[in-house]
């Protein structure tokens, strides 16, 4: 079993059998999602940050609507990845409105993840998220 973090679209209508949910659920991937809501229960954003666990992420990697964070450990610095990998995650984040001001090659993947989560909710903390 391995664990990875993703940026995913939110799908669904919020109905009893059609919840607002990460697209990962429809792919059959066990996950926890950060989905802040408006006072009426509708999602504040069209996307969410997810921690997922699986033996095989092939189906997720093949989904063009889902973007994964790079690396194996959140402590890895952005400078340890190729330009292509960095550009891919940068595009994924900026397309979702994540402010990357101040992020440099010395920042870690965890700090990038935190920046994405804080875009959804300023007090979110990835350290609180766990999944078996």
């Amino acid at each position: 079993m391995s664990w990875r973090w993703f940026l995913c679209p939110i799908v669904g209508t919020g109905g009893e059998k059609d919840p607002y949910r990460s697209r990962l659920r429809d792919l059959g991937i066990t996950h926890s999602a950060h989905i802040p809501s408006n006072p009426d229960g509708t999602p504040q954003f069209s996307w969410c940050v997810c921690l997922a666990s699986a033996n095989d992420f092939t189906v997720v990697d093949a989904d063009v609507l889902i973007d994964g964070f790079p690396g194996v450990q959140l402590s890895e610095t952005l400078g340890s990845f190729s330009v292509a990998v960095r550009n891919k995650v940068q595009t994924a984040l900026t397309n979702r409105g994540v402010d990357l001001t101040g992020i440099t090659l010395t920042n870690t993947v965890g700090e990038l993840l935190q920046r994405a989560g804080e875009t959804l909710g300023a007090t979110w903390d990835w350290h609180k998220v766990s999944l078996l």
Partner: protein
Amino acid sequence: MSILASDTFVRANNVDLGTSWDECTGESQVGGFNISSNTAIPAAVSSDSSETNNAATWPNDQYSQVTLTNPIADGVGAGSGPMCRAATGATVTRYRLIGNASGYDFARFVAGAYTSLSSGSGTTFAATNTLYLEVKTNGANADWICKKNGTSFASGTDTSPVASGRAGIAHSGPSTTAALSAWEGGDFGATVAQTIPGIIQGANNPMIGLRYV
């Protein structure tokens, strides 16, 4: 942790759980749960139903735990389980965790709007397994933990939390069977007084208002 209320559901068959329980009338099945063969069963396994417990004054920091009797592999998103911070009456606002032999689903409901916050087949449930949900205030957030047989399988923090409500039980249909043989809910007890470190630990200790010179 301390138990504020509990129920073994051992009593005569009845379409009502008793005076300690209130049906959530905003569900697709307004009848909540019934007593059958000394278990709590959904009034209709094809629909959603829930009941809140009124035997305690529920603090915002609370847990709710059920013992599953015979969960079947009816698919992720179906089954019975505990609720926390659940509104009463027709307002379907609460945290709900349900599980079965296929997997689990943890969700926030606000006025009926259902948001799945964690789900999957990574953790499944069999007869006599316990399913536990805990919700605690953490600043503006609510920290939540889901446990199976006392071991955490998912946790997180909700930045747009349901603020308060009762503990209870819930069902998400359609299920083949989704009976509960026990339930308990509780809080986390009084805060333990912390020992204030020695005043020479800091030049200016704001905890005790002294200045070390």
